[in-house]
């Protein structure tokens, strides 16, 4: 991105792009090279703040990272890394071509670099649009549809067919109230088996003015809780097959954690500041055939939870004892456990403020994406100048400096990829 551009009156036989206040081409190139290196130092500092945020939240709240990394697709990340490395190679090659005055090779390399960069942005677009659709976003917009599921990604389509929008939770033991269960009323064993509840569920038609039609159809059977079958089916392998062939009859209901579902019970401060309260759980009806259901209302009458299940070994190991250090009671920060435990934990509802991981993810990859975009424009401008044949063995500065900028952008992605995608 340096600006050693061109000026009409050069120094005699040298390339016309050697500016007059430089002694010669070497002086201009050395100044430009030193300038771009300072610019790269500034870029490192520009990204350093985001690395600080990343390190801080990983050290203090590792549980968010081990939970939320399931939403990042390692396949896409790996392809992007390969694409960027290849474009870095072609950029370096373009410099060589310019130095040796091989004009066609120069143009080919520049074109490939631009193509790869655009490829990188396309893959980025796919990832982002997927997350936006799934509401796996930062801050207030973090509202993923989460429920116990099998191996594949917990996307909205396969695991939460019931349309979230139109389903209005109706629950409560004795007096029927709008809204959802209080955490205390349910055996909320978030770590293990999801939510247990004993309710009669009814689907009631609702016309467009929101008035309920009489005579709702009861939903008798409860969807089998895949998670329970996984765990009780001894090794993980058999558990999955078990779930597949005993396909539940649709529609079936099951309790699920649905953070954004109960706006009216959250306090105004919570509402305009964060996703709904974790402790609010509701009833989700699954229709199994993937299209959204409009104009229906789910009414559920549930009995209070039975005595809480005895904690088994895995859950007990999760109970974090509060250590007393001198007069300070410190609840130990999440000690990073094995990958397998993460997998089970990541099936339950998300830990508090999981949106922070997505904030950091979007900030880092977003800022990096902007730098890739800027790189594309710079290379297009260089391509135009290369086609016009302005680069000669004694004037190839812009190519070299743009390549250096591109290598730094690649360097930052080389660190972003393992830090964000390969979390254990």
């Amino acid at each position, binding site marked *: 991105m340096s600006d050693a551009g061109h000026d009409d009156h050069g120094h005699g036989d040298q390339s016309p792009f050697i500016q007059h*206040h430089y002694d010669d081409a070497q002086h201009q190139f050395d100044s430009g090279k030193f300038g771009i290196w300072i610019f790269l130092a500034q870029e490192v500092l520009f990204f350093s703040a985001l690395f600080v945020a990343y390190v801080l939240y990983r050290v203090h709240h590792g549980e968010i990272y081990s939970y939320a990394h399931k939403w990042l697709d390692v396949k896409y990340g790996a392809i992007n890394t390969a694409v960027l490395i290849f474009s870095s190679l072609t950029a370096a090659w373009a410099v060589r071509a310019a130095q040796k005055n091989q004009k066609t090779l120069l143009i080919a390399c520049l074109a490939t670099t631009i193509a790869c960069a655009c490829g990188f942005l396309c893959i980025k677009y796919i990832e982002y649009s997927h997350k936006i659709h799934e509401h796996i976003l930062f801050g207030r917009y973090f509202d993923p549809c989460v429920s116990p599921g099998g191996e594949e990604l917990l996307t909205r389509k396969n695991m939460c067919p019931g349309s979230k929008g139109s389903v209005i939770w109706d629950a409560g033991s004795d007096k029927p109230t709008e809204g959802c269960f209080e955490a205390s009323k349910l055996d909320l064993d978030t770590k293990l088996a999801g939510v247990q509840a004993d309710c009669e569920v009814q689907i009631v038609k609702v016309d467009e003015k929101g008035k309920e039609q009489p005579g709702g159809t009861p939903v008798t059977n409860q969807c089998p809780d895949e998670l329970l079958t996984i765990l009780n089916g001894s090794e993980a392998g058999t558990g999955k097959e078990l779930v597949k062939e005993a396909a539940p009859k649709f529609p079936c209901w099951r309790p699920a954690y649905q953070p954004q579902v109960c706006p009216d019970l959250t306090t105004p401060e919570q509402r305009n500041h964060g996703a709904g309260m974790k402790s609010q759980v509701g009833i989700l009806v699954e229709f199994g055939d993937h299209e959204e259901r409009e104009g229906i209302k789910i009414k559920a009458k549930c009995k209070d939870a039975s005595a809480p299940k005895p904690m088994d070994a895995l859950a007990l190991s999760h109970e974090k004892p509060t250590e007393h250090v001198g007069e300070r009671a410190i609840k130990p920060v999440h000690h990073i456990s094995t990958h397998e435990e993460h997998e089970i934990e990541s099936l339950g509802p998300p830990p508090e403020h999981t949106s*922070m991981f997505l904030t950091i993810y979007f900030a880092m990859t977003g800022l990096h994406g902007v730098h890739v975009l800027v790189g594309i424009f710079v290379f297009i401008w260089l391509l135009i100048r290369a086609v016009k044949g302005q680069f000669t063995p004694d004037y190839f500065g812009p190519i070299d400096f743009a390549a250096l900028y591109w290598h730094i952008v690649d360097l930052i992605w080389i660190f972003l990829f393992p830090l964000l995608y390969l979390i254990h």
Partner: protein
Amino acid sequence: MATTEAFPESLKSLPQAPVTEPDFLHVSKGWKSWAFTLDHKRIGMMYLFGILFSLLLGGSFALLLRTELWSPGRTIVGPDTYNQFFTLHGAVMVFLVIIPGIPAALGNIIMPIQLGAPDVAFPRLNLASFYLWVSGAILLVLTIPFGGLDTGWTLYTPYSLETHTAVMVATMGVFLLGFSSIFTGLNFLVTIHKFRPQGMGWFQLPLNIWAIYGTAIMQVLATPVLGITVLLLTVERFAHIGIFDPTMGGDPVLFQHFFWFYSHPAVYIMIIPGMGVISELISTYARKPIFGYRFVAYSSLSLALLSFLVWGHHMFVSGQSRLANMVFSALTFTVGIPSAIKVFNWVATLYKGDIRLKTGMLYGLSFLLLFTIGGLTGLFLGILSVDVHLHDTYFVVAHFHYVMMGSTLVAFLGALHHWWPKFTGRMYNESLGRTCAIGVFIGFNTTFLPQFVMGARGMPRRYWDYDPQYQIFHQISTIGAFILGISLFIVVCYLMASFWTGAKAARNPWGGSSLEWQAPTPPTLYNFEKPPIVHELYNYDDLVEVAPDRWERLSDAPEYQGAVPVASGSKEHH
């Protein structure tokens, strides 16, 4: 002003103004020649006018602020307007005046000539930095019609996330100003490295250039963190990403770490160019070489590096842990040492000199006194137990005004008067200059000395309404503020007036020994008509005053052309 030293009459006939080609002011006409200029001197002058205007704007907010504090409760405005006064005063002064002040305005004009270079390394980047500064300034000033800004120049969250004032306009303005500062720093680093003439090694560089070098390092390595912080704050406000918002898991103390990691080097970006200028003023007007050149040069550099270690002392009581408080308090004291060394060296330079009390020297001497008070009161705030009582009180306000205004702005005015004849070709009115220098000194001390006492007595900062026991101090401070304001306004007036009424300036009115005094007054487009001769640094024996405010080098006299002046320094090229 008879001088004992005899000098050949031919010295009097040496040309002062440019001979072979027109000077840079008249080489081309029309606003386009200024708007799209690549000449570092014109860009520097455009910066200078912008900065002087911002100084008057920021100063007027200060006067409104002080008038409101004349009496407890409402004097002229309500609390919300007062909050906007002190915020805009802080933001305009810090981002528009003090940070670009000496490096961008005077640095752009003088540094390349002092280096003997035709121009800065990247002229177009230099112009781009200026327009970044202009657009940033416009955005910052645009906050006023869009609802003002009432978060304090520090923009602390979560208040800056919730207030309904134009925070986003301000943060975008600061973002652009940050990049203007980065690119200026980058430009100067490359220029100092790659454009030194033959025979000017690192230890033949004037101390002003050492200071600008140290400043450029900080500008390049610290300002990007301000860029990312301000960008995150803007995104946080409109997209609620939650990184600084405690209700969504964010951490306000994390914002303070991000902010002060930049802002402490920023306060050194403000003071170190001032120190560089002071070394030039003291040495030239005392006709004595700087005492301990290497120590002063190394202390500029060490200050630049140490400034990255101490940002935590702004956060002793803001929720920072005790361990971090201890570490930052210890490191803060290491930063005090280089400044002390500099002050001792300047005082030692005055010994056995021939001190001429021109306006520049008056500002230089008042810098010495005011910077000493500023530095010493920093000791109070560095000690943890004393800082618990003094933090966020008027003691801190007085301390940083002594360092920012009392030192940097006084050095800026000294530098302005010192180099004004060189780049405008006009002399300013000396008597008016001296009275205003004394006016600034008296006004400044009347304004801020009472604030030390008020702060120690527990008067918190940014208070619209205060207990009546502080009224007496506020009244004295307001009177001082008006004296200061008037003096500064007169300075700007007579400097502008000097364009028309000023006497023609000589090539070397003050007898300076560095390269810029060999350039014609005002310099040509590429600064020198004939390549400058690098003389021994800060050596004034060769200079003699041929007429009032006109010095010549004996070796320049035609008779002595034979004797080649001793060109010191190794042949090392960059």
